[in-house]
């Protein structure tokens, strides 16, 4: 077996040294009745040629010929080949959490750069070394708010990604914290009146999407004002981080915590995972931040270097009093984002965001030509919902043509009949005007 370097001779000598008669004998500490005395019922071993052929066949049964017209939390973007070729360098790829800083400076400096990118894009002062995903990051943000404020009510906009809200509910279930959901208006923005009404002295956090799940650039400043008016924290959630190349950083608009995913930078959609969740906040709440964080310091010779720091917040030191239970995070995904952001740079990011905005316009116009109007009147970035009649039917029909059509909003808002006809679509730098036109026509018939 190519991954098992032991020859029979090795095994014998090692068993002798270990004072064991056989390999099974090494497991004598497992009571006989607890041992498995039959082969596992999994497929027989496959050689590499067979393995690759078999999985290529499986992959071929997933239709990825065209970039999907659906984002809804996972965005199809171009990943420059340079990103992956650097990511695959074994020194990065096969490392783990940098517990030994002297031989982990590569990972550590890259994480420090990641944290800086997160801060620059969100307009906040500190960020951690990544979270599992945007949804759990959102839940952790709510928990942080309850710790910081000592309050137990979380007000969340219905326009925040429904899956994120589900995860939030799952995470908060046992804590007894209450979640109050406020609706959005016809413009797809959070209903500010309802929001202000919902926020009170018991409110720990107000959570809004930016842009929100409907693709609409929500009224973050007003939401933040409403939160701060009652001493609550404002948490902004961003699923399409490319938008931050065009939009003000949430921190600059009043958000105290910014969370979401940087999947759009350097990470393929990969059927939904993995992708790097990000977590940024105001310095004052630093000690309540979940997860790993990398900091600069000096070595014995006074040379600048980096280490994991503030670990007294973490589970391996604090155990049940830790700020979170997270240990393994999304390091490689964060590295991919860091490399992509380095390539983009100031100009590239601004331009990429504007290209995406423009493609969104092209989509809007193409759909309009086919008689489909936007479902919401609010301003959008590269994603928007259209009234298409039976959205589920459209998705099914276009699948037959190799097009992933969009997210039927009825699926995410089952109780809202108005949503049945709404199809959430995205257009990015991968969608050429020609393809967009072809898509719009396909939706029509």
């Amino acid at each position: 077996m190519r991954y098992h370097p032991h020859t029979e001779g090795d095994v014998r000598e090692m068993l002798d040294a270990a004072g064991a008669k056989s390999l099974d004998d090494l497991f004598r500490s497992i009571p006989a009745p607890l041992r498995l005395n039959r082969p596992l019922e999994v497929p027989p071993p496959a050689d590499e040629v067979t393995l690759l052929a078999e999985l290529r066949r499986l992959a071929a049964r997933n239709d990825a010929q065209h970039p999907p017209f659906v984002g809804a939390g996972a965005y199809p973007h171009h990943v420059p080949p340079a990103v992956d070729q650097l990511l695959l360098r074994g020194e990065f790829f096969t490392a783990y959490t940098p517990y030994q800083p002297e031989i982990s400076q590569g990972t550590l400096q890259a994480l420090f750069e990641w944290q800086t990118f997160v801060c620059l894009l969100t307009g906040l002062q500190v960020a951690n070394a990544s979270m599992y995903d945007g949804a759990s990051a959102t839940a952790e943000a709510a928990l942080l708010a309850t710790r910081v404020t000592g309050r137990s009510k979380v007000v969340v906009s219905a326009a925040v990604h429904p899956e994120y809200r589900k995860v939030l509910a799952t995470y908060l279930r046992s804590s007894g914290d209450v979640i109050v959901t406020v609706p959005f208006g016809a413009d797809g923005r959070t209903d500010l009146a309802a929001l202000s009404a919902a926020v009170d002295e018991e409110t720990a956090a107000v959570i809004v999407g930016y842009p929100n799940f409907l693709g609409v650039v929500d009224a973050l400043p007003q939401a933040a004002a409403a939160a701060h008016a009652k001493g609550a924290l404002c948490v902004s959630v961003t699923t399409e981080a490319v938008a931050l190349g065009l939009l003000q950083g949430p921190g600059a608009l009043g958000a105290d915590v910014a969370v979401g995913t940087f999947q759009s930078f350097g990470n393929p959609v990969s059927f939904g995972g993995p992708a790097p969740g990000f977590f940024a906040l105001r310095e004052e709440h630093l000690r309540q931040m979940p997860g790993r964080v990398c900091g600069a310091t000096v070595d014995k010779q006074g040379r600048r270097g980096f280490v994991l720091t503030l670990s007294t917040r973490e589970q391996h030191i604090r155990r049940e009093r830790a700020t979170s239970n997270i240990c393994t995070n999304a390091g490689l995904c964060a590295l991919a984002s860091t490399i992509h952001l380095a390539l983009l740079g100031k100009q590239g990011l601004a331009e990429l965001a504007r290209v995406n905005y423009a493609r969104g316009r092209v989509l809007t116009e193409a759909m309009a030509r086919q008689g489909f109007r936007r479902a919401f009147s609010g301003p959008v970035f590269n994603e928007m919902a259209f009234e298409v009649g039976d959205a589920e039917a459209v998705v099914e029909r276009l699948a037959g043509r190799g097009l992933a059509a969009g997210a039927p909003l009825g699926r995410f808002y089952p109780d809202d009949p108005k949503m049945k006809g709404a199809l959430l679509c995205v257009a990015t730098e991968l969608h050429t005007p020609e393809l967009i036109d072809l898509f719009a026509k396909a939706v029509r018939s």
Partner: protein
Amino acid sequence: MANPTGWKPDLEAGAAPVAQEEVGLGHATRGLSFEEGLLFERGSRGRIGVSLPPRGNDGDPASEIPAALLRAEVEGMPEVGELEVVRHFTRLSSWNWGIDTGFYPLGSCTMKYNPKSSEALARLPGFAEVHPLAHPSMAQGALELMYRLERALSEISGFAATTLAPAAGAQGELCGLMLIRAYHVARGNPRKKVLIPDTAHGTNPASSALNGYQVVPVKSGEDGRLHPEAVRAAMDDDVAAIMITNPNTLGIFESHIAEIAEIVHAKGGLVYGDGANMNALLGMARPGDMGFDVMQFNLHKTFATPHGGGGPGSGPVAVKEQLLPFLPLPLVVREGERYRLVTDPAERPQTVGKLREFWGNFGMFVRAWALIRELGPEGLRRTAQLAVLNANYARALLKDTYDLPYATDSLHEVVFTDKNLKPTGVTTMDVAKRLIDHGFHPPTVYFPLVVHGALMIEPTETESKETIERFCAAMRAIAAEAAERPEAVKAAPVKPVRARLDETRAARKPVLRWTPDMKVE
């Protein structure tokens, strides 16, 4: 025990002379390297490292989006060309240590070889570019892979079904505890406490607390095992569950597991298994057959999915029948020749809900399935056998030099301490740093907490006999050096681009991001 390879560890900075006799042995030395600043400290206004499609003249954002919400550019972003970016990360990587660099016996982390073929597979457009919300007819291959993986994990662990959703081991723990809570709630009382042995990993208590349970530590015995009496004493009707890592973090099998499970079950509690050490049991024994009701896998450990720099992971959770109704969504089901995801709570009224967006870390599923597929039943079993053999071999080569706090049999890992070095003043941390100069990644240090000055060694099955011998020779050489020249050990490491770093300073004056006026000295 003697030095089977006769390998001579290198005590001076320049390994050359020794290396010459032992050219085959990947000896540590020093070579040309580079200082490399932060991205934000280089580059020049106007540089760009990408090539983007034309924007076209479709609409000016300002006409749609309120001016207050727009920015022209993100201040502080670097401006670097593609070549500079490639050099930057190529150089950073050269300061790092990975499994591809050398031996990485980081206890409890199962740092085994990450197959290159899995990387080729995970990058197939059919896997990497398929959208989670694409119509099921466009993703049958992905769904079938998830289905097969779920079946295989259930069989390997001996449970009824497995959810692939959790993003890592700790989230798997959280998920498992949520299932336990839901189970108790369904019986009218969530209960209050979770019993956790003192050898447990920090995520166990943290996950319990996060799930609203009060943590009750249980002391393990002289032999490093959890004993029925201790559990019986702590067990009552308020205890929702006990969390047991088996083999535990000392690498010791909890041989009383069956009896302990009975005790807990008798009082209506459930038994949670932390499966991070599953590598020791593959094909040899199944938690599901020992009384566990639920456990999480760490795919990124046991099934070799890469997690450079700290992740991503994947923490599927396997359960017994009685917990099935509560599993989080989605579930992947097979209907005739078709596969689909169950995502609608209406289909699973008792589900605890969702743990993360979409369906889990699919990219890790591809890799884990590829490894299981290549190993097959014999290969999986052999994996556990060789992992345990390697740990026991290391134990045999070191037990006369380093203090072995528990004489009990070891499975996949072995824990030593720095007790024997006390007189020299050399500590576990010093040994760890000196190992770097010998060309080895240090073991896990100071964990588990119950062991003072712990050195936790987990070689994994993908390492060769010679590698373990050379590592142990280095460990012994350091012990010898500690006796003669403790200051040399304390000065380590001397070979990497950085000497020991000032962690106190990092925590006292946190500098957590670059700023134009940043100064660190």
